[in-house]
């Protein structure tokens, strides 16, 4: 295992210390908890946003704590949902009296832990609502299962609901716009290599030198299909066809695009993917309102990427364009 770490047991703690040292103007850590909150938390009268999940997805989620996005990011062990007590502390620390919205990625563990924390907070009289992000079209949707996973599209929920909260929206309004984003966002990913959970010390799966995995999650779970290496254009064609089959878009519609690197893929390749995404959208008369290219929701050092499309209306456009100032997401 080739990693720049000290002790695999303490990677999360050391990472959070390094993060707080890097960005004291943005964030602080709750003593005794793996919770990062806005340096100025709680913000009086503002709806607070709390998100989180297993670690290993950096800059998600603590990197998005700051003005116009999250109020707290809760960091579980690598690829493991944080426990309710951690989430509960986060809720208490950021509640500014206007209520708290939990942004949860749709994994059984995450959902249960966040819901328990919500119950604990409600028992103390804090108003708490939650939304569940499930943008990954690689997983068949069905009312009989737990449904799709939440992946990179979550960052659009943070951005847009965060902007609404920053603008003074009520808890109900912030939740409503978060749900609008969830309804309109779709993602799908692929990977060239696995990643290594530090505590495990070995790759999450094995894959041939000439193979790739399509429909990857962000926890090293196997994808939905394994194929021979494809060219960038073919990969994007495949991901986009799955996304477009699920997200009804017509000529004249506007979207936001996110090309998200999973950790080990250089920016060069993400831009090459974006070229093809743009060409496909051009061909369908769909307008690109804004594009984000970079690492937003990673899977440790996994080589691979996901494509996310968010269908926009005027409200989403204006909230997406609002300023944000966090360690990992800045917009002027």
């Amino acid at each position: 295992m080739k990693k720049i770490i000290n002790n695999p047991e303490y990677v999360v703690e050391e990472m959070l210390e390094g993060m707080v040292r890097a960005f004291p103007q943005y964030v602080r850590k709750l003593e005794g908890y793996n919770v990062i909150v806005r340096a100025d938390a709680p913000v009086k009268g503002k709806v607070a946003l709390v998100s989180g999940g297993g670690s290993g997805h950096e800059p998600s989620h603590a990197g998005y704590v700051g003005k116009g996005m999250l109020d707290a990011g809760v960091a579980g062990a690598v690829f493991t949902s944080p426990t309710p007590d951690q989430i509960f502390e986060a809720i208490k620390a950021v509640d500014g009296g206007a209520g708290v919205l939990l942004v949860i990625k749709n994994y059984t563990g995450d959902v249960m832990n966040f819901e328990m924390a919500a119950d604990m907070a409600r028992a103390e009289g804090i108003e708490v609502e939650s939304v569940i992000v499930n943008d990954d079209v690689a997983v068949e949707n069905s009312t009989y299962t737990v449904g799709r996973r939440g992946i990179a599209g979550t960052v659009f929920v943070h951005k847009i609901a965060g902007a609404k909260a920053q603008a003074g929206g009520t808890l109900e309004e912030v939740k409503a716009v978060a749900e609008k984003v969830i309804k309109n966002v779709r993602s799908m990913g692929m990977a060239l290599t696995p990643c290594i959970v530090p505590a495990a010390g070995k790759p999450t799966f094995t894959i041939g030198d000439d193979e790739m995995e399509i429909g990857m999650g962000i926890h090293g779970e196997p994808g939905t299909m394994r194929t021979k290496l494809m060219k960038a254009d073919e990969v994007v064609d495949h991901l986009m066809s799955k996304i477009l089959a699920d997200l009804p878009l017509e000529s004249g519609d506007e979207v936001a695009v996110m090309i998200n690197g999973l950790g080990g893929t250089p920016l060069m390749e993400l831009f090459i993917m974006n070229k093809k995404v743009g060409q496909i959208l051009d061909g369908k008369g769909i307008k690109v309102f804004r594009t984000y290219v970079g690492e937003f929701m990673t899977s440790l050092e996994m080589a691979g990427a996901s494509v996310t499309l968010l269908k926009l209306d005027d409200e989403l456009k204006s909230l997406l364009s609002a300023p944000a100032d966090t360690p990992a997401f800045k917009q002027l």
Partner: protein
Amino acid sequence: MAVDSIKLIDIIKAIADKINEKREYLTQLDSAIGDADHGINMSKGFKAVVEKITNMGDKDCGTILKTVGMTLVSTVGGASGPLYGTAFMKAGQAVAGKVNLDFNDLISVCEAALEGIKYRGKAEKGEKTIVDALEPAVEALRKHRSEGLKTALQEAVKAAKKGMEYTKNIIAKKGRASYLGERSLGHQDPGATSCYIMLETLADQLLDKKS
């Protein structure tokens, strides 16, 4: 039968030992259809539990069970933390204040645990989860209640084992394994397995030592 607080602590310690013994096995089951951490998660949780309850012999059984639940919830994370955590917390509520548990209390404890898991996880039988081991066990306890502790417990363990094995033949509808769809067929569910292990240990503790 009468289980006092000291005995209850011993039983929980025995469960912790067994879970730790089966750490690799449970993790291996999870690697086939999940994220290869169920054994790690459970043994981490029960290690913390043992530390917490060792000196609680002077507390009532309800408090001890609640402490087990809260400790699991706050150390395990993932799916099994809230599920087993809720199960133990509900179990504790069911026998709140009691310093001795009789056979009927035992059944209440198991019923409450099942209720907790179903409340938290919203799973039904047949979805390849903990419920597939626990619900048949509770049903057996109820059905054989009149035949006494020994028979009832033995039937419960048998039923749990059958349920656990049955999970090989069904598609996961809940939890991480559900993302695999058909590919989850043929693999035994790790959560149902850990549940069976706990019930088996409980029966061993209660029957061997004939308390």
